[in-house]
């Protein structure tokens, strides 16, 4: 029994079974005890839907979830005792103070008085909320509310903690404090299920990452191995005079022919050249431009966007035309890679 979570064929259809929205589409994965498991995907991929099913808040349309050996559909009570939940939107009671919020949650999870007061003090101090413990949460900043919401999720020392996009929209300090805490909890033995749309966050924190897109899991692997895939989709973006828009299809072919370029894509008024090694490519780009009488007005190296990683992992060619936007020059259906939040 080394698996904290075993998910088999999990599916959620919102609306009628035949014509509804398939938010999660027959996914299967395991989360091992003691690991930080990342659930990485763009907005609308089905991350929150999956987390809500794993935490009993949403009933699956199909499939099974087994947590710590208990089938969630039949035997959720022991699981509920062992898990903590941090939702996407901080759901603290704004009419209550931080202290009252923690006491309420502690009592709800039947934590003894001595333990919950000691633990609440410790958590409030760790999260920098101790001075404000008697202030109503309605006066808290977004970052403070998020920290309080995490404190409330762990006051009963859950063996398994779910976090749904805990850092977006927070100031740098709060985000770092939260990442540090996740590491610390994990070091103390807590299994962590972390939903995120930030590759870097997944890289920094996770032992393994599942990549989910449009309700399906494209890959489950260690960040190291996924990064190997990421490396193939780094790119160099070059702005030229005359601009890319004026440059003929010929020129596309010639950019693709530059050594080190795997794919060349016209991206707005610039060219994006995919490569495994930008440092080798940069001087080549300058040489090629000079040789063709083009003036380079901007040049930048871009890390892989999650969108690119997906295309790479799902076996589609980077920069390839997406099926919903046929012919025309090789322009991508989706610009700007991963957007922010809705």
């Amino acid at each position, binding site marked *: 029994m080394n698996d904290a979570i075993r998910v088999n064929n999990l599916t959620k259809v919102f609306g009628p079974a035949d014509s509804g929205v398939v938010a999660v589409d027959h996914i299967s994965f395991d989360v091992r005890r003691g690991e930080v498991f990342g659930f990485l995907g763009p907005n609308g991929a089905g991350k929150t839907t999956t987390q809500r099913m794993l935490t009993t808040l949403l009933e699956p349309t199909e499939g099974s979830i087994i947590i710590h050996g208990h089938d969630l559909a039949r035997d959720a009570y022991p699981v509920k005792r062992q898990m903590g939940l941090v939702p996407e939107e901080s759901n*603290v009671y704004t009419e209550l103070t931080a202290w009252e919020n923690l006491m309420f949650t502690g009592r*709800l999870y039947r934590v003894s008085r001595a333990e919950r007061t000691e633990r609440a003090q410790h958590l409030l101090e760790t999260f920098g909320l101790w001075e404000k413990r008697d202030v109503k949460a309605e006066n808290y900043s977004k970052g403070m509310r998020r920290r309080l919401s995490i404190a409330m999720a762990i006051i009963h020392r859950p063996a398994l903690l779910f976090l749904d996009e805990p850092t977006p929209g927070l100031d740098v300090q709060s985000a770092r404090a939260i990442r540090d805490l996740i590491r610390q909890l994990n070091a103390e033995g807590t299994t962590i299920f972390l939903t995120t749309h930030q590759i870097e966050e997944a890289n920094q924190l996770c032992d393994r990452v599942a990549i989910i897109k449009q309700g399906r899991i494209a890959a489950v692997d260690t960040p190291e191995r996924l990064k190997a895939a990421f490396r193939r989709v780094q790119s160099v973006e070059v702005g030229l005079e005359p601009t890319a828009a004026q440059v003929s299809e010929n020129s596309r072919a010639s950019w693709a022919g530059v050594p080190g370029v795997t794919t060349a894509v016209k991206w707005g008024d610039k060219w994006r050249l995919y490569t495994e090694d930008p440092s080798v490519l940069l001087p080549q780009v300058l040489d090629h431009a000079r040789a063709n009488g083009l003036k380079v007005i901007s040049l930048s190296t871009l890390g892989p966007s999650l969108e690119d990683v997906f295309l790479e992992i799902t076996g589609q060619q980077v920069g390839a035309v997406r099926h919903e936007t046929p012919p025309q020059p090789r322009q991508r259906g989706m610009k700007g890679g991963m957007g922010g939040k809705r």
Partner: protein
Amino acid sequence: MKLRGLQRVGDELAQAWIIVAKDIRVHYLRPGMIMFGFLMPFFMFFSFSVRRAMAAEQGVARLLALTTFFTAAAAGPFIIPLERRLGTYDRLLAAPMSLLTLLLSKTAVGAVFAMAVSAVSLLVGLIVFRVTIAQPWLLAAGAVLSSFSFSALGLIFGSIPTRNPGDVQMPSTLLRWGLLFISGVFVPLAEMSTGARLLAFVSPLTYAQDLMNHAVLGAAMLNPWLDLAVLLASGILCLLPPVWMHRRSRQLGY
């Protein structure tokens, strides 16, 4: 094994109480709600009780039945959709306790408020109208049972799968006013036609009114034990649709 079962029951009762205390804190101990609680009995009295010359006792019995009926529905049905919208309801749904405990706690919150406001009504009756209460124990039992029963009725509307408290307003108001007019509140049961009386027997408010007549006036039409039994049964029956509606919410994702 048996001990564990007992432990679980104890836990669930404690959890229900914790939620009641929290809800009172969060939703009812606000200046607006407290004002409302104090004004409601007077509002009720002037709206419904002084339509014709009647004995003060009769007026107070009616006032008591109506305050429990209306205050149990004043805020209770809106709390769950509101908490769903704020996301705080998920805390309760994810907590290690049964759905029934959660539903009982939400019923109790509305009932506690209804009882508190009924106490104000009673004080008005005792102090302003100097009425005497024929059967104080029956009054207490009746107020508690009616409050729970009407609060459970409100829970049916609170369980509508929605995150918008506004969606609850219309159906909840319609049913309450419908029940109000078919019940034996304005026209005593004894003076009703057979058809109207049969209809009145469908409404739990009829039994609450009859019970209050027993308690305050010392006389009424039905057996007080029947009144108590019907209120208890209707309260329990009213908990069934919310169980089903909560399952539905869990499928729909509210």
